[in-house]
């Protein structure tokens, strides 16, 4: 399948994404793309010293993923791990009966590449045009041996897929569709603020179908719930997939089941 698209050689066609730059090869005053990275403050790279940053950048490549293109497939050999520097990614698992279960949404600053048995534990797809830093897993692990304190720092950031899946379990534990949808909106709002973006209006780049899949609801139920929340003045649907939250405290009460 598309595993060939991940090779470093560029002889083959790379349709899903384009390699942008090898960090160490940047010319002149721009030492690396890290210098202009907007996600740096919120990503694994944030606490690194200049020297550590340089060593990490030396094994890194920047890749651009096109809209709705896969980044990797579940069970494929996990050669790389990633940090999202721009965009939104959905991670999902295929169930035994062929259905797909979205287990989380990841954003700029999040780490991507949870591995099981040398293979990716999930599939990942770009929901919008997305930019990633790509690290060869083995070389990164070797670097962690050389810089032990980087290991702890990286671990703090590397659990985002697990965290997203655990958030989902909490959401699915809620009883009503309304509580799930509102909790989801607030979760995205909180996540945006943690990553240095405004929490209101909140950006929902995922489709109603993806939200339904994630929340264990039907697409119709999700759409009806959004319409209901809008009619009650709890949310305002803006253009470009943004939602304003004019009554935040009321939304929090709904999410808590009041």
């Amino acid at each position, binding site marked *: 399948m598309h595993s060939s698209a991940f090779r470093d050689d560029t002889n083959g066609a790379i349709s899903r994404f384009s390699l942008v730059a090898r960090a160490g090869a940047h010319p002149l005053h721009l030492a690396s793309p890290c210098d202009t990275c907007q996600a740096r403050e919120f990503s694994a790279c*944030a*606490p690194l010293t200049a020297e550590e940053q340089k060593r990490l950048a030396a094994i890194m490549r920047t890749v651009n993923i096109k809209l709705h293109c896969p980044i990797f497939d579940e069970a494929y050999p996990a050669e790389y*791990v990633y940090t999202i520097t721009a965009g939104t990614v959905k991670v999902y*698992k295929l169930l*035994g009966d062929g259905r797909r279960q979205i*287990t989380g949404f990841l954003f700029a600053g999040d*780490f991507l*590449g*949870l*591995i*099981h*048995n040398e293979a990716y*534990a999930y599939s990942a797809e770009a929901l919008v045009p997305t930019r990633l830093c790509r690290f060869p*897993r083995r070389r*990164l*692990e070797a670097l*962690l041996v050389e810089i032990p*304190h*980087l*290991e*702890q*720092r*990286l*671990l*703090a*950031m*590397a*659990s985002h897929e*697990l*965290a997203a*899946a*655990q958030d*989902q*379990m*909490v959401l699915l*534990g809620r009883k009503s569709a309304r509580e799930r949808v509102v909790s989801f909106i607030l979760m995205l709002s909180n996540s945006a603020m943690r990553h240095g973006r405004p929490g209101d209006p909140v950006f929902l780049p995922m489709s109603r179908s993806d939200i339904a899949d994630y929340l264990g609801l039907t697409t119709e139920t999700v759409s009806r719930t959004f319409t209901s929340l809008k009619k009650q003045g709890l949310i305002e649907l803006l253009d470009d997939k943004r939602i304003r939250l004019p009554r935040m405290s009321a939304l929090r009460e709904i999410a808590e089941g009041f």
Partner: protein
Amino acid sequence: MVDTLTPRFLDRRTIDKAYPLVRNVVPGMTAARWTQFFRPHLVPRSPDWPRGVMTIQNAAGYILSLFAFEVRADLHESRVFYMDHIIVPNLPGRRTLWASTIGAAERLAEMNGCRAIWAEFRGGAECSDTDLLTSLERSGYAPAGVRHFKRLEAKSGGVGDGVTRPARGSYDA
């Protein structure tokens, strides 16, 4: 940012939250089967012979690793701490996670007056996890004893959840 890793017991409230971690390491595991299997582990057999599930959580309360444990009587060592179903995901920086997991087990063993720890890894991915084995060896663990395994053909007792019930008269090791 350096995350703080904290050991916490799994309880009925958090058992569902641990499921994504288990699903990641044990593909095909359903939430129902996970809950059904581990719920009894959350109740100790007696105050003197505790058992349970210990998790390692980060500062935000997300579960990053877990293991089941049980204090058992042992003819040679008196009280022994058994840990199994050890689940540590393959994350960059997981040696830190391993160290926390092993550290939590050892503290728990000491608190319960155990004289030794058995750490059990069954077949499959865990056995080929060299990072894991290296971490254990560095912490003073060594292969010991012999365990043989034979899968028996299921003749009856299956209830459709993928769990094979022990035949009547067998013992719980």
